[in-house]
C-alpha cells in the first residue's frame, strides 16, 4: 500500500481552483439578483444609447445600407420574424444536437481520463490542439464529405463544444479533496460511490462552466458553418440579407443571435445558482 501522508491544506479545499460562474459575467455581480433601481438604470442606459444612435443616424442622414436606425431594425425584426423563425429553428436543431453529442462525449472522456493521470498527461497536448483549433475551418471539408444538410454542421458544433466541455470538466474532476474521499472511504464507499457522491459534485461548478463555454462556441460554429454553405439557418440569413443589402433584416438576425447567446448564458447561470451555489 502506498498511502499518502495525511495532509490537510490549511486553507479550504480545492484552493486556487475555486470557480464561480459569476466570474464569467459582466452583468451579474454580487448576489445576481438586481434591485429595481439597478434594473431601471440598466434600462435607462439602453434607452439613451438606442435613442442616441437613432437620433444621430437620422440627424446625419446616414444611408440605410450603411447603418439602419434601431427603429427600422425593430420593425424588421417584427415584420420578418415569421420568415426568420424557421431558420432560428434550424440553427437551434444544429446547436442542441451538436452540443448534446459533444458535451456527452466530452464529459465521459474527462471523467475517464482524469482517473488515469499518466494517460491524461499523454493526451493533454492533443486536447489542447482540439480546443484551440477553430473547428469552423473544417466545415468546407465536412460539407464536401457530408453534403449541405444538417450533418456537417452538427459535427462541427460537436467538435467545437466537446473539447471545451472536456477541458473544463477535467479541471473539475481533478480537484481531489483527500479528506472528503477519506470520509467516504471511512464508510466503506466503493470507487463508483466516491465518483458519484464526491468527485462529481465537486466537479459540477467547472462542468457547468465548460457546458456554458461549449454552448457559446457551438452557437458560433453553427452560425459560421451556415454561412459557409447550405441554404438554411440564421448564418445563411445573414449572408442572404447582406448580399441583398437588406440591412434592417440583417441586424434583426444579429439581434436574435445576441439574444440566443444571452439566453445560453442565463440558462447556465440559473442552473449554476441552483446546483452549484455552494461554491460561490
Amino acid at each position, binding site marked *: *500500500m*502506498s*498511502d*499518502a*501522508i*495525511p*495532509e*490537510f491544506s490549511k486553507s479550504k479545499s480545492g484552493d486556487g481552483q475555486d470557480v464561480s460562474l459569476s466570474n464569467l459575467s459582466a452583468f451579474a455581480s454580487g448576489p445576481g439578483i438586481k434591485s429595481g433601481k439597478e434594473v431601471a438604470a440598466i434600462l435607462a442606459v439602453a434607452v439613451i444609447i438606442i435613442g442616441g444612435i437613432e437620433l444621430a443616424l437620422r440627424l446625419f442622414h446616414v444611408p440605410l445600407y450603411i447603418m439602419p436606425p434601431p427603429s427600422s431594425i425593430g420593425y424588421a425584426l417584427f415584420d420578418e420574424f415569421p420568415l426568420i423563425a424557421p431558420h432560428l429553428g434550424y440553427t437551434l436543431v444544429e446547436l442542441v444536437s451538436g452540443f448534446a453529442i459533444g458535451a456527452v462525449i466530452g464529459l465521459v472522456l474527462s471523467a475517464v481520463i482524469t482517473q488515469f493521470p499518466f494517460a491524461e498527461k499523454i493526451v493533454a497536448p492533443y486536447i489542447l490542439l482540439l480546443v484551440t483549433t477553430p473547428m469552423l475551418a473544417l466545415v468546407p471539408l465536412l460539407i464536401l464529405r457530408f453534403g449541405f444538410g444538417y450533418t456537417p454542421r452538427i459535427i462541427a458544433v460537436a467538435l467545437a463544444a466537446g473539447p471545451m466541455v472536456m477541458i473544463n470538466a477535467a479541471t473539475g474532476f481533478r480537484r*481531489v479533496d*483527500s*479528506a*472528503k474521499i*477519506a*470520509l*467516504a*472511504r*471511512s*464508510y*466503506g*464507499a466503493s470507487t463508483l*460511490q466516491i465518483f458519484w*457522491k*464526491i468527485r462529481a*459534485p*465537486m466537479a*459540477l461548478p467547472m462542468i457547468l462552466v465548460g457546458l456554458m463555454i461549449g454552448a457559446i462556441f457551438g452557437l458560433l460554429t453553427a452560425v459560421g458553418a451556415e454561412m459557409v454553405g447550405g441554404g438554411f439557418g440564421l448564418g445563411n440569413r445573414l449572408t442572404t440579407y447582406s448580399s441583398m443589402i437588406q440591412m434592417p433584416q440583417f441586424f434583426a438576425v444579429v439581434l436574435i443571435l445576441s439574444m440566443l447567446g444571452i439566453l445560453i448564458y442565463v440558462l447556465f447561470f440559473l442552473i449554476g445558482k441552483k446546483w*452549484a451555489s*455552494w*461554491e460561490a
Partner: protein
Amino acid sequence: MNAGEATTPKLGVQAATKIYHTASGDLLALDRCSLDVRANEIVSIVGPSGCGKTTLLWSMSGLHSLTSGEIRLDGKAITGPHPDIGIVFQEANLLPWRNLDANIRFPFEIKGEKPDRAWIAHLLNRVGLDGFGGKFPRELSGGMQQRAAIVRALALKPSVLLMDEPFGALDSFTREEMNRLVEEIWLDTKTTIVFITHSIEEAIFLSDRVVVLSARPGKVAKEYRVPFARPRSLEIMATKEVFDLTNRIKMDIVGERTRPKAPERPSAEIVRIRP
C-alpha cells in the same frame, strides 16, 4: 476504566510501524508504536508537530494500512474502514454541496441503509442544532460545522470515535464549549474516544489518559492518567494538579521537539505529497 488490565482492549495498537514511500525517499512515520484503549475510555494523543498522530489515527480507522504491526478492534485485526469506528476530521469536512440533513444522511447513503431518524434527531438536539437541517455548511459557524460533523460521525452508532484535532481551527471559547459537549456526549453514549489534539488543556480536560508521542518516528513516549471525576467543570482546570500536569506534558513535548532528529530524515514540512 476499572475493567481491569487483563481484558481485551477495545482498540489495541501493537507495534504499529508505518513507512511512507515518497519521492524524496522513505519516511518512517510510526515506529513500533503500541497503545491500548479500553472500552468507554477517552484517550488523548498529544505530541510535537509531524510526530505521526494523524497517521496513527488514520491507521486506527483502517483508512491507512500499516507497514507492519497490527491494530485490533475488540481483538480482531482491522484491515480496512470499519462500521464500528466513527471519525471526526480536522475542520469539520462537511460536504459543502449538501445541507446539514443531507450531510448527516451521507453515511447511511453510502451504506445503503435507512437513516435512523429518531437517533439523528436526538443527536442534533444534543449538540444544539435543532432546526438547522436545511442550512448549508457555509451558512454555519466553525463550531456549528464541527457539531454537525460529530453528529455525522455518531449517526451509525459506532462504538469507537476517532477525533483528529477536531477543534484546532476554533477559537478558545468555542473550543471549551465543544470540549464540554464531547464530555456530555460521552456521558450519554459512553463511546470510546481517541482524541488527537495540539492543546494540552483540551487533552487533560477530556481524557482519562493522555498519551505523549515522541517526535518522528512516533512511538509512545509517556502516558499520564487524569484522575478527575466526570462531569468535570472548568474549575478543575485552575487547580494546581492540572497546572503541574500541563507543565509536565509540555516539557515532555518540548523535550521531544528539541531532541536532535536523525539527519537523514526530512522534516514534515519538507515532505508533503499530493495524492
